[in-house]
């Protein structure tokens, strides 16, 4: 079976590889490029643990062939953090307890990053809709929604000391 020579830019770094037609993008990222922050959770395009940005568009990388990504600019969770540690969204997840086991988190972060790029001030309903292709089994989503809101507020330059998750007592 034919091999294809492809070049992809991942988190700003160009990589060239000879790949089989059937190699899935997620396996290129994880197994060939050793970027294991992108996860695999379902195989049937439901869970979104494998979400990466392909030319800025959040995409389930288990349902894209590596060869389809030839020439693309790919963003993974490893590329989110800036020089000062964490992006506003990563910080939001930490401040609002938006993660527990951490397995769905990279996918959530990539979807959330794309959402905030397109919509600087999403409503709760918009956030819930945007992350509806990313399954989380630990958090019940409440704090993921808050994490995105935190990042939106911070990026808007609003008071970054958004209140942390406190119970409604």
């Amino acid at each position, binding site marked *: 079976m034919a091999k294809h020579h492809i070049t992809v830019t991942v988190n700003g770094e160009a990589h060239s590889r000879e790949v089989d037609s059937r190699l899935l993008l997620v396996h290129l990222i994880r197994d060939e490029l050793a*970027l294991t922050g992108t996860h695999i959770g379902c*195989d049937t395009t439901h869970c979104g643990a494998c979400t990466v940005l392909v030319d800025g568009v959040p995409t389930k990388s288990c349902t894209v062939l590596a060869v389809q990504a030839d020439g693309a600019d790919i963003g993974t969770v490893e590329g*989110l953090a800036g020089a000062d540690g964490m992006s506003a969204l990563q910080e939001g997840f930490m401040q609002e307890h938006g993660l527990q086991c*951490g*397995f769905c988190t990279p996918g959530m*972060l990539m979807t959330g990053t794309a959402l905030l790029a397109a919509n600087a001030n999403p409503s709760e309903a918009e956030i819930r809709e945007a992350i509806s292709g990313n399954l989380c*089994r630990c958090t019940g989503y409440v704090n993921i929604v808050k994490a995105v809101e935190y990042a939106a507020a911070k990026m808007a330059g609003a008071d970054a000391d958004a209140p942390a998750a406190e119970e409604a007592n």
Partner: protein
Amino acid sequence: MSDAKPRTSAKICGMGHSMKRKEDPRFLQGKGNYIDDITLPGMLWLDIVRSPIAYGKIVNIDASKALEIDGVLAVLTGKDLEAYNLHWMPTLMSDTQMVLPTDTVMYQSQEVAGVIATSRYAAADGVAAVEVEYEPMKPVIDPFQALEDDAPVLRTDKEGQEDNRIWHWEAGDKEATDKIFAEADVVVREKMHVPRIHVASIETCGCVADFNPVEGHLTVYMTTQAPHAIRTVLALVAGHVGLSEEKIRVVSPDIGGGFGGKVPVYPGYVVAIAASVVLGKPVKWIEDRMENLQADSFARDYHMDAEVAADASGKIRALRIKTLADHGYSDAQAAPSKFPAGLFSICTGSYNMENAYAEVDAVYTNKPPGGVAYRCSFRVTEAVHCLERVVDTLAHKVGKDPATLREENFIPKEAFPYHSPLGWEYDSGDYQAAMDKAKEMIGYDDLRREQAEKRARGELMGIGVCSFTEVLGAGPSKDFDILGIKMFDSAEVRVHPTGKAIARFGTKSQGQGHETTYAQIIAEELGLPAAHVQVEEGDTDTAPYGLGTYASRSTPTAGAAGAMAARKIRDKAAKIAAHLLEVSEEDLEWEPGTFSVKGAPDKSVSIQDCAFAAYTNLPEGMEPGMEATNYYDPPNLTFPFGTYICVVDIDRGTGEVSVRRFVAVDDCGNIINPMIVQGQIHGGLTQGLGPALFEEIPYDEDGNNLAGSFMDYLVPTAVETPAWETGHTVTPSPHHPLGAKGVGESATVGAPPAIANAVVDALAHLGVTHMEIPIRPDRVWEILAAKGVAK
């Protein structure tokens, strides 16, 4: 009953602080280390051939075409393992389970052969190329049919097994209970099925088995919630081929969700280990989602027939439950050995009653073996669902508001410690307080008024109440063991000369945040900043022996062990402080982090000073160093509780149920980290919503698993999940060193009956008393149509 202010400063960050999690930065930056992230030099891949049929004979396995594929190195079958007597293995419940079959398959997707190859892709091609010829037999799928006289005996491998019964279990005084039923004013009864479900953690199971043929040493990296117990089980299973326990190291890396599904030993792990031993190379096995849903341990699958006897006013007098438990082809539960029906006898719940009797019969069917707990302390979910549903039926029957009926039957707070009719000693409780808070938060009376108005207009709205009592923290060694190993747990704390510490535990976090909460426990007891306490778990070579994390046992057992170990260190530090301050120990006062002289607060030393002195300036005769270990054998279980109230609206056209509001008031005793506790409740509620409305693993009559992927196993998304509202009350556990009770699973237990009760409540005026879960729109619509109210 109000929250105490944290005893420690924000810098120390002991109990009661919402400390941000120490594990988060690595997860947020893609630097977690999950099982599939582990790659070893020369590593091979295992993929598994599985049975497409539910029951039948294996006529032939032809691996020749698979072996022709470039990269495929070997195909392991049951016959290969039989040569080493490794084709069967014991389950945690002293039943047996096949690793790979030699002649018969017992359920769809059962492991049939292992293909070992140099890559993921070649292994998968190999699996597709192995040709297995089967002679199908008619499977036994319905557990009631399995008990009929003409049902074929499934476990012909077990000597003396003449039918499909596994065991019978009972608790309580049958005669006395029957007598109450015979004379009671009111008896209500509901039959219900809590169906087979799956934990479906987003990370599936897997391992990397690495056998070093030179040293005869085996390291297994695996997705396990109980690494130490697994090491012992491996030694028991494979000791006869030279794998003794000192040569086995089990490492549990970061775990992408466990929820009970990562407690058992699955055949895939054993095949990977066998392959690594045979080939002398590391072998990786990673399940895909379909394998995970179709072959790993299921949860629940209890068919219950519940009755409550009461007086005319609705005062509960007795409870009687008869249950059939479908275990699949092997009893491969992960439960304490002496508790075949887990802690089902918690089924009298929050209510004071004269007597109770519960019995469970377990049967074999042609389904995957199990079951595990799915975020539940061993069958508590089934017990609570059963009771909370039938109590609602009673309220309906006697014409009382379901909240009122519950309040009138609560065990009063003065009655604790309370001895339940089925033998538990509840440690503490104040059920009315949780109920009051939940009603206030949701605006209960207003909702009832709204419901009456809507009902008059023909709209269907329901309010569901559930007041559950959990039983956690297995458990005291006199009753609780797994394969004979007592269910203690452990902590080892070392304070370094500079006042920083490492603490290791016998448990294993799968998202619960142990690296943070355990550090807070040490901080609380020692006054060291939690930021300076490094927590480690999961490596059997370094961590002290423990039974692992499941059934909400980490805080009740290992958390207590951490506190006790820290107290030992503090005791030693006190002696050092006295030495440094040149006073007697009795003259010292302890404030978290500081010993000072009574009456002279400026004369003080810090815990860090004491740590440094433990290595540099010891009192004469004192053993150097500053470390302690504790194996904590809890004196009793803990009994968290709560009241949940749920509001649903039903679409009369489609039967769709939408959860409009859900208030959860939990009492888990003293709280270590409020942020994490709330997160646990959010997650638990969502894993209660799933089984209540969406999740189920059904089988057709041919034994096909009909929810074998996320196409049909319906895990709720952010859109279906409501914005949970949480609150809490605090009733400390009197016997736990920190007054804590554990919380990880309360919400999974309490949410399904609250939701089911809300749906039934919406339809109660039509004479509906019960709805089976999952409450699918089509099920609701069938009722609406039958009652003539479908639009």
